[in-house]
């Protein structure tokens, strides 16, 4: 049986196809492009599976960022919390963990005990603790995200709570001649500082990192002090889509 899982993120749409519990296809399409080039609208969003070029599909499950239209025609829609938990369970085999998912525009912290979600916290107020913030700051610094994410030592202080104010604060530091390494580390550290209060309610041993920001080495480094073990998953950005497939294969009943 082939199952399609789609996670409609704020920046990118992640597409995974699973066959017999194995991932056989993975692809990312920018959110704009996905809706524009792969979908039509008729009361509900209709995905042109032919254009996606993923072959025959038996079941399709979708999830996504809360404010988007993630209810696709012919898809079973599941909430993003569940999708990410199932993704993490599939990828780690763990049943008890804390999942930190930092995406393009939102942050989720989820506690899982005995394989079931028991607590969660979402940050929907401001994107200053999300991937988009890192992107903006990298643009200001004219550096790639990958390069910026490697630096964690000796961060410059950035104290603004707002993403826009942080930019001017950063520019102030650039003008003062602070080294680029310190600036890179400063950006990473300021994101970590905003995540910390959210995580303080979620003490535990094992933390699974997911979402695009999981690729940020500096954030991982900082988190290391707060948890006994930081567990990285191979496909942090595909976690939600993988969770959709997992749901489709384990729980979805044939109608």
């Amino acid at each position, binding site marked *: 049986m082939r199952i399609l899982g789609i996670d409609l993120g704020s920046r990118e749409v992640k597409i995974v196809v699973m066959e017999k519990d194995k991932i056989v296809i993975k692809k990312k399409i920018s959110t704009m492009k996905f809706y524009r080039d792969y979908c039509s609208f008729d009361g509900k969003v209709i995905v042109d599976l032919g254009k996606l070029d993923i072959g025959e599909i038996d079941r399709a499950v979708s999830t996504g960022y809360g404010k988007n239209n993630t209810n696709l025609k012919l898809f079973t829609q599941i909430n993003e*919390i569940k999708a990410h*938990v199932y993704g993490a369970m599939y990828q780690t085999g763990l049943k008890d963990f804390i999942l930190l998912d930092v995406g393009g525009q939102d942050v989720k912290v989820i506690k899982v005990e005995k394989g079931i*979600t028991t607590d*969660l916290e979402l940050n929907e107020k401001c994107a200053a603790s999300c991937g988009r913030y890192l992107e903006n700051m990298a643009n200001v610094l004219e550096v790639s995200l990958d390069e910026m994410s490697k630096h964690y030592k000796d961060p410059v202080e950035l104290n603004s709570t707002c993403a826009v104010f942080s930019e001017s604060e950063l520019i102030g530091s650039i003008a003062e001649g602070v080294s680029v390494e310190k600036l890179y580390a400063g950006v990473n550290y300021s994101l970590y500082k905003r995540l910390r209060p959210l995580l303080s309610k979620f003490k535990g041993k094992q933390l699974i990192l997911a979402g695009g920001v999981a690729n940020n080495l500096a954030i991982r480094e900082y988190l290391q002090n707060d948890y006994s073990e930081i567990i990285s998953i191979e496909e942090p950005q595909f976690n939600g889509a993988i969770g959709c497939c997992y749901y489709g294969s384990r729980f979805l009943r044939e109608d």
Partner: protein
Amino acid sequence: MLKKIGLTTTVPVEVLVTAGYSPVDLNNIFITSEDYLKYIDIAERDGFPKSLCAWIKGIYGACLENDIKEIVGVVEGDCSNTRALIEVLQLKGIKVYPFSFPHSHNLKDVEIEIRKFMNIFNVTEESVEQTRQRLNKLRELAKEIDELTYLENKVNGFENHIYQISLSDFNGNVDNFENSLKDAISEIKQRKPINRKVRLGYIGVPPMTGDIYEFVESLDAHFVYNEVQREFAFPRAITAKNIFEQYYDYTYPYNTTFRINELKKQIEERKIDAIIHYTQAFCYRAVEDIVLKKQLDIPILNIEGDKLNVLDARTKLRLEAFIDMLSDLKEAN
């Protein structure tokens, strides 16, 4: 007119009824009152700390506002805050009779405490036993309602909660309450079973947030077990040889291990899928959650209530996420 006596938690009520008192569970007055926040406020104005369980403050306010002149204060086996609560009530001129559920949880020690209690109220063991036999008739009726809940699915979780909990004071009148139980049973038997996807157990002290019952039902789940409420009703009193055994075989005030044995039995018998463990903010019982989660091989969600008498948005979200995944598992099996 019988003299009223306030209770801070369930005590050997047989003794009080024999002595000619009408027991009033202060918890019930507090939580069913529209003035429940006012009661908490009264306590805080009199100096009770913000960071103290809302039940204690509510009991205090309810006691003062409802003209209760005498109370039984449980100084061992319930929460240690009660000890301080009764000191303040004494200061307000309220007569306090102490009672203890001994930590040792030894039948002999339970007997000693109950005998002390009988002496305070000047009643004999024989007359208490007669009352016990009388009250056991009501306990059997409550047990029947409980069975109609989990065996026939004809009673919803909230009704079950209310009927079981009311046996702590028989709503102030044994005969009237017996009739209302009988009426309820005959009405319930006519009903069609309520079938919901997920079967939940409610454990921990009764909730400040009574709407939890309705809320879980909206998620296609229902409570088929109310742990402490059921203990307040003493379903096993009928088989106890005497009052000492009855209050010895009571899981609420003693250690967690003893409580867990009964929980395991009930989870099995009632085919419970998962447990919602309610704890009150600032209560030591939240720590027991660690032991319960370890010892019970079933998903457990710990939720906490404070002053609000309705569920907050965050707790609702947690319940939703928890029940959503339980439904998945149920579907898969």
